[in-house]
């Protein structure tokens, strides 16, 4: 008897035309087609989506939370990337 557990899939749903797919959760399915079918039943019972992506969870590479300080620090120190860093003289508009 093959008691092999179905693999885990991550599910992404596009809620409407014009918006990107968003992660909604995960589920188990034997293959990609079944993952789509199950995602339809599990995550879109109330018209939450018009398009589904699934990917096997083991294929996702994630950044390490323990290294997030070093990973994201460079962005924190570059405040000149934000428009609020600059002084705009009074009287200047449309900028």
């Amino acid at each position, binding site marked *: 008897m093959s008691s*092999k*557990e179905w693999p885990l899939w991550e599910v992404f749903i596009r809620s409407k035309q014009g918006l990107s797919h968003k992660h909604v*959760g995960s*589920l*188990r399915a034997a*293959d990609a087609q079944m993952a789509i079918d199950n995602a339809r039943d599990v995550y879109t*019972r109330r018209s939450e989506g018009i398009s589904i992506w699934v990917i096997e969870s083991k294929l996702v590479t994630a950044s390490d939370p323990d290294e997030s300080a070093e990973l994201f620090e460079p962005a924190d120190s570059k405040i000149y990337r934000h428009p609020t860093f600059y002084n705009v003289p009074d009287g200047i508009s449309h900028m």
Partner: protein
Amino acid sequence: MSTKNIEELEKEFQAKIDADIKIEPNDWMPEAYRKTLMRQISQHAHSEIVGMLPEGNWITRAPSLKRKAVLLAKVQDEAGHGLYLYSAAETLGLDRESSIDDLHSGKAKYSSIFNYPTLSWADMGTIGWLVDGAAIMNQVPLCRCSYGPYARAMVRVCKEESFHQRQGFEIVSLLANGTPEQKQMVQDSLNRFWWPSLMMFGPNDDNSPNSAQSVKWKIKRMSNDELRQQFIDVTVPQAEMVGLTIPDKDLKWNEATGHYDFGAINWEEFNQVIQGNGPCNKDRIDARRNAKENGAWVREAANAFAEKRKKKELTH
């Protein structure tokens, strides 16, 4: 790998919790936090799945096509809730198969309420009104739980539960305003489900040893007794509105506290049901085991089909 010692990590962890920063799956967390959540989320998932059984009992006997469609949709939602929760628990490293085996062996617990039988159609109303009502009371604070995947699952669940409660109350209210026999049927149902519903909130606070730690970790946001009182306060006027009598002779409004006073809960019954001696414990577990065993060939066939399709793709 982090070089910090465990005290530092625990301190940082608690500081995040105190600052209302959610904990996500790959973040460091104390083993006890992980274990507590795995136990709570898997019990919650088991409850959703076992919770399909008392209502499933009435799908083929619903009084109209409309009621049948509604009940089917509700039971399907419960399956969905179970699935959101199992996958939330899997983010903590739970093994789904062995967790389900623990349910089937009696090692894992589920909500005591589902060990009571559904004897009449009115029970479909009472379950939606009281059982889903109590579940919502419990689950709304869990939407703010410190563990991200659990909180997100709860948001989805709560959105869906409100339909469950309303359809239940509609059944109750129609029967309560129906023939004398219908009114009697729904009163009888309320008499049977009232006290078990109050037990759904768990033991009294001074008898709930793990609560303090769960509150500190913001897994639990309100105490068992607070939630139970809140449930009674909102439910009693609903019963009065449809002319039903809550089966508690000690129930009365307390002007001074602004809450209802209520009678003593039979905790001996609660403990018996939790320990497996409720009216339907054996039926429920047997039904789950049969479903798994009799469905094994479907899971194997799906695996075989997936293998075959994979091979075909490789040769193309």
